[in-house]
């Protein structure tokens, strides 16, 4: 049987497949997850390492810088998660 194992010539087969591929929505979810991970790491490092001096920002009240940065990075993930929960309609208030 192996003697009859021959390579099948491409003959524009790949081009035909590529031409017929439907447009797929680009997947950007990984960027949101990556941002959330970076935000969490920033919070953990800046919050727990006592050698790093605390920076406080007075906006809107007094807030620690790492909380602000963490919040900025994590907020897209939180918004996206909420959106996905509502979109899939498997979210129940109770």
């Amino acid at each position, binding site marked *: 049987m192996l003697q009859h194992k021959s390579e099948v010539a491409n003959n524009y*087969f*790949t081009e035909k497949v590529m031409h*017929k591929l439907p447009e797929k929505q680009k997947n950007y979810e990984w960027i949101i997850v990556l941002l959330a991970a970076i935000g969490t790491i920033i919070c953990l490092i800046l919050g727990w390492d006592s050698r790093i001096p605390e920076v406080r920002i007075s906006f809107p009240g007094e807030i620690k810088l790492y909380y602000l940065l963490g919040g900025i990075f994590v907020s897209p993930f939180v918004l996206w998660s909420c959106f996905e929960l509502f979109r899939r309609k498997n979210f129940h208030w109770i």
Partner: protein
Amino acid sequence: MSKSDDLLWVTRVTLLGDKSAFDHLTRKYQSSIRRFFLNLTMGDSPLSDDLAQETFIKAYLNLNSFQGLSGFSTWLFRIAYNVHYDFVRSKKITSDIDESQINHLHQLDNSFSAEKLDIHQALLLLRREEKTAVLLFYMEDKTHKEIAKIMQCPLGTAKTYILKGKEKLGVYLKKEGYGNE
């Protein structure tokens, strides 16, 4: 090396939407997938190309579900197996020995050697599962474990399909005077 290489190409498609990476994967596996369908359809080239095309399109659309636990090739063959299964079911081919396939064998062009025709004739004697398992094992060099994954059956069942298929092929080819091959 090849497995991790494939994973890299798949990642490029899924994360970056890079179509050229999928083009690379299609070029790499088109031959084996088309050969698999050619043997399953007894050399029906247009049909096997259609089925192979459907396989690659389905693979592209479901690439996000590829977890990399098995090789990309195994995953692709699993889709191919399902595509063929769906095709057979849609055509309501209830018997493994299909008359249209036998007729088709006689109409094949001269590029098919007598020996190849005999092998195809012998493959007609096998049940669909046996034929698939035998082709994957002997033609596509898949292991028993990979075949079980592709056909979504227990390892023992995959081994039995190959063994029974091999036995039936042996009996037929012996009758045709091929000796103990």
